[in-house]
């Protein structure tokens, strides 16, 4: 669920090919830098309806998915 939401946001964000986005894909490969991540996060909060304080380094899409899933359980 979270993965799909993040994937959708990334595709909307920079027209990435959805089939090319896996849990292992890095944000760098997607051309997404830390500023873009901040914007993605704000958009993601709107989707999941909860504030997410990103206080860890995330390198891959999977890292972000795991982080958000953890936060949603808290």
């Amino acid at each position: 669920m979270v993965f799909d939401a993040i994937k959708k946001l990334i595709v909307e964000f920079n027209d990435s090919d959805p089939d090319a986005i896996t849990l292992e894909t890095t944000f760098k490969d997607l051309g997404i830098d830390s500023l873009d991540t901040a914007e993605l996060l704000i958009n993601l909060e709107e989707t999941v309806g909860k504030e997410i304080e990103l206080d860890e380094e995330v390198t891959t899409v999977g890292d972000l998915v795991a982080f958000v899933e953890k936060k949603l359980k808290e």
Partner: protein
Amino acid sequence: MLKSKLCQLLGIEYPIIQGGMAHVADGKLAAAVSAGGGLGLIGAGNAPGDWVREQIRVAASLTDKPFGVNIMLLSPFVKEVAQVVAEEKVRVVTTGAGNPSRYMESWKAAGIFVIPVVPSVSMTKLVVRAGADAVIAEGGESGGHVGELTTMVLVPQVCDVAGVPVIAAGGIADGRGLAAAFMLGACAAQIGTRFLSAYECGIHPLYKEKILAATDIATITTGKRLGHPVRSLKSPFSRAFYKAEYSDMSDEDLEAMGVGALALAVREGDWQRGSFLAGQSAGMVKKEQPAAEIIREICEEAEPLLKGAGAWVE
């Protein structure tokens, strides 16, 4: 006399912050700026906690006016520096390169006024939510690490969402720039490049010479490929870096090429191998002066401009 919310909040006379420049802004420069009525910052850069503590004490011995520390969040010593500023109860902390949320609680407990540098609207939202007391909207005209947006477009958009005082940075070097910053919605300016020419700024004389000789097109940004572009004077080093960036050199090797280059510029004045960080406003920096005079001059120039703004309206 300029009126600004930031002056009221911090108890300073002039709405001018001297950027906390790594390797450049030590306790002496920060104290000179604060004694001159602005807000001086010590640039912690990649320095260890002990150095920062020493500089805080140097500044405190030279002035009883408020001053602050800039903390680079990617520094290997960020944790200890974050603790030092809390222990020393520094009045103001500004942060660069990220979101300082994890330190916010301890800084707030120490009574510190926290001002993160923000390069975008989303980052503004995140840091304000984390408890920022004000934000510095820094445009890509500035020297050092730069974002993509210009001051002209970033400042008003940050003002629209911040809900806390906004300080404009990037490209401001005289009263016209300060007055424009107010018009964009900011309540103060952070200035880096112009303070490189201050008497109390201890950079190598050749660095100062190059700043004073710089023209409008004297700077270049490099390192975009690495995700953290830097603006510096065009020099043998920055030109070589620029070339390497568009060659097949690996990211690791490119990254390694930049290590230590700023220190070579600041301490040795090594024109061949040093990285002489400077903003586009270097072309507007014409002479070496005391920091206090720089501050006064900028504010005295801004005042009549702001008073005269009514001339545009019928």
